[in-house]
């Protein structure tokens, strides 16, 4: 879950609501320009920063991201109204889906090993003796570390009998499984987009809320306003997000202006069937294992950092791919929007001409607030196609493998192994399987970038526990998947 319940999440969502509200009224550009002043009016209390001006400057930056524009490109003198106009004029969303609010990075010191004042200046001095780089010295009876010499090996941290030496972490750097985000020489976090796999972990990890998704909400609202047929495709994880039924959510989404709503679980059923077939063929041809292919974060990891595992990745397309194909076939002139738990799907959408936009769950929530739609009082609207129980469970870690297992013949040897969350460690594990061609823990490796599955995506609203319960309960209402 994305930092839910903390102040940065509240702030991000409030700004999204205000942007949408500004759009729904006349004079969008001027309304947007006023957002920082509406949120921090003259003479108001200053909740977080040093003064009201800094608060407004940061709200302005966050608003830029909400408009779908890179904060890094802001020259500070351009008015928010100009950015709002740019958002209205653009014909397609920006390529890179993430942006960093530099002003928020200042509060976070660079990662380093540091001796705290718990140092007792002991006689044994294991820190001094353990350091191979001569970085530790004793000043006034206490240890200090020379940052220029320290290689961050952590030996001194481990040997200190008082636990007086700590590694100061930078949460975004620490959370990134591929080393794509780091503080630059000025202390600002920068994302290397050639390395980034859009897993969204830095978005959830930063306690200052400095990493933002660039929203496509204005682009979607524009399409709806222009009178086009706009189709919503709901990721299976959405069923765990709000206290309502799936059918009520269907109605609520239609109230916001969408013409049709598809459950992506429908496409998940196709993924399951194709993946089961692919698995059987591979095993019969003598393969040791196969990995799943529905997590967008994992697919980008494979493309950018783990090419060697490519031969083991199922050729099956994602549930979104099949759902979008059906939607475009049934409604050729339509605009398709995927409702996503995470930022990774924005990248997948760019590569798929059938998916026009991606809106995350937070943005959908903001849309309901701005339009004053109370989801739990909406009537039920049934879906045109009924997805299976197993397709609905794709959002849960283990759910994809389980679906494939259900379609196996009894004599097929099937053992699932879950990579439940991408991290530096689990990526090493996957590398090992790719290198040796063997995975002793199972022959179907299900990879989910987020621990817990899609219900733990960076843009989710609900707590993991409740979301899990709700998604499972909704799954139970569906029929089991079958091969026909």
């Amino acid at each position: 879950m994305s930092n839910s319940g903390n102040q940065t999440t509240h702030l991000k969502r409030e700004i999204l609501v205000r942007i949408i509200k500004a759009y729904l009224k006349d004079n969008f550009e001027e309304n947007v320009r006023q957002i920082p002043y509406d949120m921090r009016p003259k003479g108001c209390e200053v909740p977080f920063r040093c003064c009201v001006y800094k608060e407004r400057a940061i709200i302005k930056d966050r608003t830029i991201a909400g408009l779908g524009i890179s904060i890094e490109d802001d020259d500070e003198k351009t008015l928010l109204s100009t950015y709002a106009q740019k958002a209205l004029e653009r014909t397609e969303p920006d390529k890179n889906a993430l942006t960093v609010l530099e002003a928020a990075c200042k509060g976070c010191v660079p990662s380093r090993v540091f001796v705290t004042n718990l140092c007792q200046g002991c006689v044994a001095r294991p820190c001094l003796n353990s350091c191979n780089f001569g970085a530790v010295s004793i000043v006034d009876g206490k240890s200090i570390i020379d940052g220029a010499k320290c290689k961050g090996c952590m030996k001194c941290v481990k040997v200190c009998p008082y636990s007086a030496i700590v590694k100061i972490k930078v949460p975004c750097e620490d959370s990134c499984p591929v080393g794509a985000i780091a503080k630059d020489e000025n202390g600002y976090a920068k994302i290397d987009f050639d390395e980034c796999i859009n897993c969204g972990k830095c978005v959830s990890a930063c306690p200052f809320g400095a990493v933002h998704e660039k929203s496509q909400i204005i682009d979607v609202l524009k399409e709806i306003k222009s009178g086009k047929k706009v189709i919503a495709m709901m990721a299976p994880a959405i069923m765990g997000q709000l206290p309502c039924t799936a059918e009520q959510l269907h109605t609520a989404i239609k109230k916001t202006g969408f013409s049709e709503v598809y459950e992506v679980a429908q496409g998940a059923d196709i993924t399951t069937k194709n993946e089961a077939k692919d698995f059987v063929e591979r095993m019969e041809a003598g393969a040791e294992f196969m990995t799943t292919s529905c997590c967008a974060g994992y697919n980008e990891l494979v493309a950018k950092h783990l090419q060697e595992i490519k031969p083991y990745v199922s050729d099956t397309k994602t549930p979104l791919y099949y759902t979008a194909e059906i939607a475009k076939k049934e409604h050729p002139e339509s605009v398709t929007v995927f409702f996503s738990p995470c930022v990774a799907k924005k990248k997948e959408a760019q590569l798929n001409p059938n998916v026009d936009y991606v809106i995350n769950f937070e943005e959908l929530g903001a849309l309901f607030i701005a339009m004053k739609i109370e989801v739990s009082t909406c009537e039920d609207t049934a879906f045109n196609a009924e997805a299976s129980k197993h397709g609905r469970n794709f959002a849960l870690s283990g759910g994809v493998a389980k679906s494939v297992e259900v379609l196996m013949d009894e004599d097929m040897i099937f053992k699932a192994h879950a990579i439940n969350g991408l991290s530096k460690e689990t990526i090493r594990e996957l590398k090992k399987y790719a290198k040796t061609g063997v995975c002793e823990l199972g022959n179907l490796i299900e990879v989910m970038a987020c621990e817990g599955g899609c219900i733990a995506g960076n843009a989710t609203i609900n707590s993991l526990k409740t979301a899990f319960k709700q998604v499972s309960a909704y799954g139970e209402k569906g029929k089991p998947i079958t091969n026909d």
Partner: protein
Amino acid sequence: MEKINVKVCLGTTCFVMGSSNLQELMDTVPAKYGDAVDVIGVPCLGLCSIDWEFSRAPYVKVDNDVVYEATVEKVLSAIERKLGNE
């Protein structure tokens, strides 16, 4: 002693603005206070519609006192105040 009634608003606005995170109160409050405090999730309390104050959501009511921008900590200290412990 009269029971304290805690109502956590689970309306769409409150839920999106953070009451999703307050659901843990349904487990932790009975465990801590037993029968002295009753905590339930309720449909929209209607507080966000007054002047459209969505930005102060999520709302929680502890008896008749309204907790604005509620967090677990804020609700617990409101309960403590009611119990006369603070």
